[in-house]
């Protein structure tokens, strides 16, 4: 369970978000909606560890408490948080084959054969076992998004952050990719937070939805 308590955000002194509370259970996706500039991305930065409680970066000031399974996250550096982040761009490394991209994320302490087996398993799940040695640019946008999600999950994150991961996809593809994402999160059984503009995204995730509105105006 990922919990956020009393999250507030201000930009140059004016409040953007005040006293936001939420809990996300394992395997659930909470959606956060709101207009641009309301501070959705800053919330993600706060949770991923690039924006810290009480620190001021470029006029942005965040405060609040984030915890995972009751353990406070505030003082942990990004690399110790085991956070997965999926963004608009799939960010597959263009100079590595698909399977290398997947292997990159799989923890090193596993046996070599197990690492290959889980990468191969992921490819089969995607229905592209024959594309193991092709480069990311050979895949369609929808396939790239799915590979990116599986790559993130193969790193065994404790919680997942989704920053409008569907917005660059064709509308026809979106439905499939959304269902795929939800299914994978449920199987991984970790809490996930989705930030989006699109109400359909939030609906498809079948979870709670928080709509942020401008408080300062």
């Amino acid at each position, binding site marked *: 369970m990922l919990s956020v308590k009393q999250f507030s955000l201000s930009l140059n002194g004016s409040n953007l978000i005040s006293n936001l509370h939420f809990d996300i259970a394992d395997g659930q996706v909470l959606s956060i909606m709101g207009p641009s500039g309301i501070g959705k991305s800053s919330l993600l930065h706060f949770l991923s560890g690039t924006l810290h409680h009480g620190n001021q970066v*470029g*006029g942005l000031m965040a405060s609040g408490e984030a915890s995972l399974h009751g353990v406070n996250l505030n003082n942990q550096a990004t690399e110790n948080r085991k956070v997965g982040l999926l963004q608009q761009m799939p960010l597959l490394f263009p100079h590595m084959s698909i399977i290398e991209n997947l292997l990159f994320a799989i923890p090193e302490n596993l046996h070599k054969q197990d690492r290959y087996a889980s990468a191969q398993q992921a490819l089969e799940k995607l229905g592209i076992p024959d594309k193991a040695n092709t480069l990311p640019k050979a895949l369609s946008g929808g396939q790239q998004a799915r590979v990116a999600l599986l790559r993130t999950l193969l790193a065994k994150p404790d919680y997942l952050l989704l920053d409008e991961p569907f917005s660059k996809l064709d509308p026809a593809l979106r439905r499939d990719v959304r269902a795929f994402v939800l299914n994978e999160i449920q199987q991984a059984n970790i809490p996930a937070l989705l930030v989006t503009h699109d109400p359909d995204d939030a609906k498809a995730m079948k979870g709670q939805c928080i709509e942020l509105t401008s408080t300062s105006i």
Partner: protein
Amino acid sequence: MPLKHTTLITWLMALLLILPIAVGLIGTLLPAFQYFPPLGEHRMAFTPWQNLFAQGEFYASLKLTLITGIVAPVIALWLALSLLAWGYERAFFKKFEALLSPLLAIPHAAIAIGLLFLLSPSGWLVRLFSPWLTGFDRPPNWISVQDPYGLSLIFALVIKEMPYLLFVMLATMKSIQARESLQVCQSLGYSRYTAWRKVLIPQLYPLIRLPIFIVITFSLTVVDLALVIGPNTPSTLAVTLFRWFNDPDLSMRFMASAGAVFLMLSIALVLGGWEMAHYLLSKITRTERSNGKRHGLTDAVLAVGRILGLVTLLSGFVALLLLPVWSLAKRWRFPDALPSQWTFDNLERAAPLLITLTSNTLIIALSATLIACLVSLLMLETKRLIAKGTNQRNNTRAQHHAFDWLIYVPILLPQIGFLFGLHVLLIYLDLNGALSAIIALHLMYVLPYVYLTLKGPYLAYEEEYLRQANRLNHKPWRNYVLIKLAMLKPAIFTAFAIGFSVSIAQYLPTLIAGEGRYSTLTTEAVTQAASGDRKQVGSMALLQAAFPILVFWLALTLPPRWTKWRLAMKMTLKRKTKCSA
């Protein structure tokens, strides 16, 4: 790069950049006033200056330097602008642009030697027209290279500088929206050349001011090119100073130092005069620009420049082609246009020497360039981190980072002005004649080019890839190399190739730091250029030209195919292990 202490690194790097130059300048300035403890001189005096101004050779050399150093950049700029105005955005010009890079990559000494082979009285040009047109059975008694007016030197300088200026201009064309402006002008009925003259060139000039200054400084101070193809009695000031510095009579050093200081002052004056001339010219032409005339007589200036520019480029290429011809010639009597017999004997005979020279050259060039790449990456990463920390609060500090102007100092200062001063430091450190000293001095000239080439692509890198990698596995150093550097491969390879060719071309730094103990292809080719064994000199110049071309070719060929080949290799290896298992 997961760096800490960015401010400390910045200061250290800046110090490393400034220190050798400052030491070199002081080491030149003090002897110019008779202060030189190693020779037992502890009192300041004006004697060196009195000696300098009493030398007739000084005035003759200075005159030559000013003529060649000002005329060459003017012509180079004129021809480069003409070619650009003529060909920009036309289909054939793309191929033309591709031809520029070999000319840029090849050390200027190699081009000068090729020109010697082309233009001298027994050169290819005279051979081509003899005896059927000229009636010459033996080389005429002309002075067509190393002429006392420095015309051949000017020609060589233009061949080297015009492609550089053209290259720089092409890179800046996007930022002045040249295509759109041209379309507007042409729809208003302006001829192509008039549009360039009235609209584009005035916008272009401020953006290429710095490269022009580099070209002027180079023309005023070049030593190797002037040794090969410049006049010798008297020679240009830089060459005269070089001779004085190397004179067995050590007291000549005082006068030479005073001369070096004078040369640096002249550069400042010439640059000031150049800017003044530009200011006046733009004042005068301002009203003319808006007089509405769609064509003008001055269009002819650009039209003529275009033809001269093409001739210049062509001569450059012919000069280069003559290098392999000479190195493979067995019998080549005077009026024949080509050797009557060919052989590999020249190369074979020179092989022991060529192998030593080549290995020295490559060791120096590869180490200096490799270090330059690493230092550039370190500098750019600190710059990026500092820019990231300040971009919201203080934009100017991030944009005008100390590195960005410090890096130009070694390129803008004349080598003759401070390398001899730096030599004194090397003696104190007991590093004179050491290979490491040569590499360090090369580094000073390689680093700026590598840094400036890498800067754009490095700072434009999408950092999110690296961040995602660090979220997936927490090995920041490994990810920096395997993700960020691997993705920046094309830029790094190109920067390496440029740095490599800069190092290959160095003459003075090699000679001064190495004290003649380590000869490279360049130093040996320049030394022997005048002596006359064209077959041997041709072979050296050929190798000198061949390595940069090879490295450039690799830098363009490897990166786009790297991943494909790597994966293919991996597949083959996998298949083999499967079969054997």
